[in-house]
């Protein structure tokens, strides 16, 4: 059977080391190199950015609902961006752009991966910190710099970048084409370069920590699904983000140094431009080569977190652990060869479009497997409704609803009429936006005790969940039908088209649903801040979970474990195992201590163990016969 080697000298060494450790305020809270503190920095920055982006969305939702009304308050708040109390059309586009950019990159990439990869990778694989704590710190500070630069673009004369979060040139390359392509666009590009630097430093750290710093006994197939998800996400990021930088740098050249990588045959405002030989499609290829893996960078951590949370709270092992991992790997690999489905009608060769359509629809298979496995995990479980559990379930519901419309959009022939309509908006806000943010919130509720040593209030969590869940469906479900009526996205107002005016009432409804969901976030923010300081104090393992992070003490010490890092003997999902005393068996419990609950399956690749098991069960039988 597995051996437990106790190394006392390691304990002594470490405690000695701790006595010399003096944290000042600056090294503990600001320039911290402790992965747990960096995770909290990422989380709080991410939440701040999310609130800002949400407020931006409310602003443009008001414009969409009441295109004819004036709101003098807006002029007071926004000044020249809302003359006469109505949003300026160009500022509307800037709002849409910055909302998208912040949500996709700053909240759902850095806020989600940055927080939970940092927090959970060392804790769940059993490491004292990241492979390189210093680079980890740099990663956060680059991220914060990117955030500050992005927000600073609201204070330049012509306003922030406005050509949509995809910043397609020539619109983004020609300052004459729109206000948002001026200095605001330059700031956007600089911010994005900082962001990618941050992302790469984070990603390299995550990959090397997972590969090199797992504790004794933690082989790859004993890692929790969260770690698998973060690991594969980091690989995706490391491979695809540099391509975005390449695209962005060429765009900077086109904008500032007169090159023609993306520009050709252009006449702006009657003025013939000297650009020749470039191709706007090239930028789209470079952008979506990151852009598509990016949506999986966003959703995979949410999948990992939901898998873990659902398993813990239904008191059941995740169904089909291997299938879950293989489907994650499948998604990772496939996500690199599907980017063309964003470009079916852009003028890309139609034959290529056909190929991309095939790869795109293949990716639905691993996604379907994941969904069915989650459902099977719930089946005959013993489900505890913690707020984290509810958010994880909400994530699954959104993933199904939004994922199914992906089958329409991935089909090139159907995409002809649906491309760039509200159908697309509905699709990605459900499958990527709402699903990922719900995964993130599930993580926040679940690991809050690990971050702050206290519990969040459950009832406020319930309120937050139901208002947000219902609100999100009310906002995004009707948008499908607007898209099916051919209503394009990024329209400042629907007033100019007689055929679109009947959607105005729907728009009003959507806006009020969005305002309701936004108000619900106050419940979360209050709960979050209040619980940090005055929440109920948490016990060491408040959710009776198996994974390693719950073997660390409640006070979050540098180095995570006061003594020896525990060894791992089993997979993380031994919940409700028949024959076990409790309904959970932590990963640190050796199989030798749980003879009554062992099954032959536990001893794959371990003939000695299997023999011990059969011996034990035969003696057990003999004893019973004696009785």
């Amino acid at each position, binding site marked *: 059977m597995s051996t437990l080697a106790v190394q006392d000298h390691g304990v002594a060494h470490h405690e000695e080391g701790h006595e010399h450790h003096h944290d000042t305020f600056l090294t503990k809270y600001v320039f911290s190199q402790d992965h747990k503190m960096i995770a909290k920095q990422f989380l709080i920055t991410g939440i701040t950015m999310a609130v800002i982006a949400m407020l931006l969305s409310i602003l443009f939702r008001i414009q969409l609902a009441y295109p004819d009304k004036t709101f003098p308050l807006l002029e007071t708040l926004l000044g020249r961006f809302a003359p006469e109390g109505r949003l300026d059309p160009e500022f509307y586009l800037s709002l849409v752009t910055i909302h998208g950019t912040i949500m996709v990159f700053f909240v759902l990439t850095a806020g989600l991966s940055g927080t939970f990869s940092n927090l959970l990778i060392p804790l769940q694989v059993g490491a004292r910190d990241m492979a390189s704590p210093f680079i980890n710190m740099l990663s956060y500070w680059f991220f914060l710099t990117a955030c500050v630069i992005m927000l600073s673009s609201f204070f330049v004369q012509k306003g922030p970048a406005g050509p949509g979060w995809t910043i397609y040139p020539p619109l983004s390359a020609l300052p004459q084409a729109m206000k948002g392509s001026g200095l605001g666009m330059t700031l956007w590009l600089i911010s994005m370069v900082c962001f990618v630097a941050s992302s790469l430093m984070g990603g390299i750290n995550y990959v090397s920590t997972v590969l090199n710093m797992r504790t004794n006994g933690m082989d790859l197939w004993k890692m929790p699904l969260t770690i698998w998800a973060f690991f594969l996400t980091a690989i995706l990021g490391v491979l695809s983000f540099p391509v975005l930088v390449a695209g962005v740098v060429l765009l900077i050249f086109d904008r500032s140094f007169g090159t023609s990588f993306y520009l050709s045959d252009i006449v702006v405002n009657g003025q013939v431009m000297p650009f020749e030989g470039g191709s706007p499609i090239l930028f789209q290829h470079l952008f979506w080569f990151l852009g598509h893996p990016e949506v999986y960078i966003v959703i995979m951590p949410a999948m990992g977190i939901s898998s873990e949370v659902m398993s813990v709270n239904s008191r059941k092992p995740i*169904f089909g652990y291997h299938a879950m991992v293989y489907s994650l790997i499948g998604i990772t690999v496939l996500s690199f060869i599907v980017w063309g489905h964003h470009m079916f009608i852009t*003028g890309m060769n139609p034959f290529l479009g056909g190929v991309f359509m095939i790869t795109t629809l293949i990716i639905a298979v691993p996604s379907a497997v994941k969904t069915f496995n989650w459902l099977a995990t719930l089946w005959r479980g013993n489900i505890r*409704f913690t707020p984290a559990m509810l958010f994880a379930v909400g994530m699954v519901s959104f993933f199904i609803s939004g994922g199914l419309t992906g089958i329409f959009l991935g089909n090139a022939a159907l995409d002809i009429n649906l491309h760039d309509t509200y159908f697309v908006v509905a699709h990605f806000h459900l499958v990527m936006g709402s699903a990922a943010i719900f995964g993130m919130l599930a993580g926040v509720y679940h690991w809050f005790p690990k971050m702050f040593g206290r519990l969040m209030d459950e009832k406020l969590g319930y309120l937050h969940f139901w208002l947000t869940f219902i609100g999100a469906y009310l906002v995004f479900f009707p948008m499908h039908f607007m898209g099916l009526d051919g209503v394009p996205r990024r329209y400042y107002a629907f007033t100019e088209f007689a055929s679109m005016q009947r959607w105005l009432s729907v728009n009003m409804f959507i806006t009020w649903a969005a305002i309701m969901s936004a108000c619900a976030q106050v419940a979360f923010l209050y709960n979050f801040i209040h619980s940090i300081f005055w929440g109920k104090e948490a016990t060491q393992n408040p959710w009776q979970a198996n994974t390693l992070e719950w073997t660390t003490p409640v006070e979050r010490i540098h180095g995570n474990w006061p003594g020896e890092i525990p060894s791992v003997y089993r997979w993380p999902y031994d919940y409700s195992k028949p024959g076990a005393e409790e309904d959970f068996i932590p990963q640190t419990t050796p199989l030798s201590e749980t003879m009554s609950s062992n099954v032959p399956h536990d001893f794959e690749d371990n003939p000695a163990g299997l023999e011990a098991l059969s011996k034990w069960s035969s003696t057990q039988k003999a004893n019973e016969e004696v009785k």
Partner: protein
Amino acid sequence: MAFKKMINSKKLLAFLAVFMLSGTNLLMAQTVTTDATAKPGVNWLGVGFYILLFLVAAVVIAIIGKILKVYDLSQQIKGKKGIHWNTIMGVICLIFLVVGMYGAYWDITVQGSMTLPEAASKHGVRIDAMFLTTTIITLIVFVITQILLFTFLFRYRHSDKRRAYFLPHNNTIEKVWTIIPAIVLTVLVIFGFFTWQDVENSSDIKGQPASLNIDITGHQFAWELRYPGPDGKLGKKDFRLSAGSNKLGIDFKDINSMDDLQADTLVLPVNKTIRLNIFAQDVIHSVYMPHFRVQQNAVPGLPTFFKFTPTITTEEMRRKVDDPKFEYLLYCNKICGSGHYNMQKVVRVVTQDEYNQWVAKLKPYLTPALRTELKLASADQNKSITQNRLALNN
């Protein structure tokens, strides 16, 4: 504690209620006066009212929370279990399922009927057929999975008496639900792939009657049309020639461009193959004609095409949708700047006779004014082009 007492005190609540009522009164009064003035200032009372409303809601929620807590504690003191939150959440899940499914049904029937009318083009019918197939398949999956999700939540809500069923994996069922989606998707892929190939084929097959070529050029923020003249051919274009009255940069040295016609409305003969040649001058635009299931981006420097056959005239469609003012539209569907939301062109599908009459009235691009302008400017233009070349060589 004193603070909490203050929040909970009835006096404060009563005060808030009075304040709110008077706020409503003031708000009403304010709206009347603001209507009278030309430029309304910020309606601070209205803003304050909404903030107050939110605060009251927050206070009410806080009070309910307190009541629940007190109830819970008193139950615990009595030795009973507190509120069964797991049961309550399970029930809410079930209610959500029922109400949500009804809501989805309502949405699909009510708003679903507000969507586009039947396809007005040959390939559009095929796209619609595929849309229907995909919708049916996805709706079935949607309903089944959501029902399973929320009924499982209700059915298997926590109970201290029960233990979850230890089921780590089952290879057979996993294979089944990998293979079934794979088969369904393969069918959709094959179906979609061939439709796509047919729809996107924009070249004319030899032997068949040539399709009607129409140029459409997008710029901020309008579309320009160019119809071929009696010769049936469109002349060459060069963006460097765009100047003055020759906005599109038509190369009038090409004999084919001499008789090219300008038009304000995209008029199409019914049941005739149309080949749109799509250009953009400044930024990317997108030619979107949802009624015909046509969309293709207009990319500067990269001419694109879309070939389709309209099958229903505007008149027929007006009768079908029962709206005498109905018009087919072409509008921009790729973000292109401040006027993006209003970059439309009316499309009218007419009979061949009507089309012939209409085409006869069109004016050529080469107006007498332009003719004189070009003759005067031709020398200058040549010079500027050579200058450009020189600059490039440097």
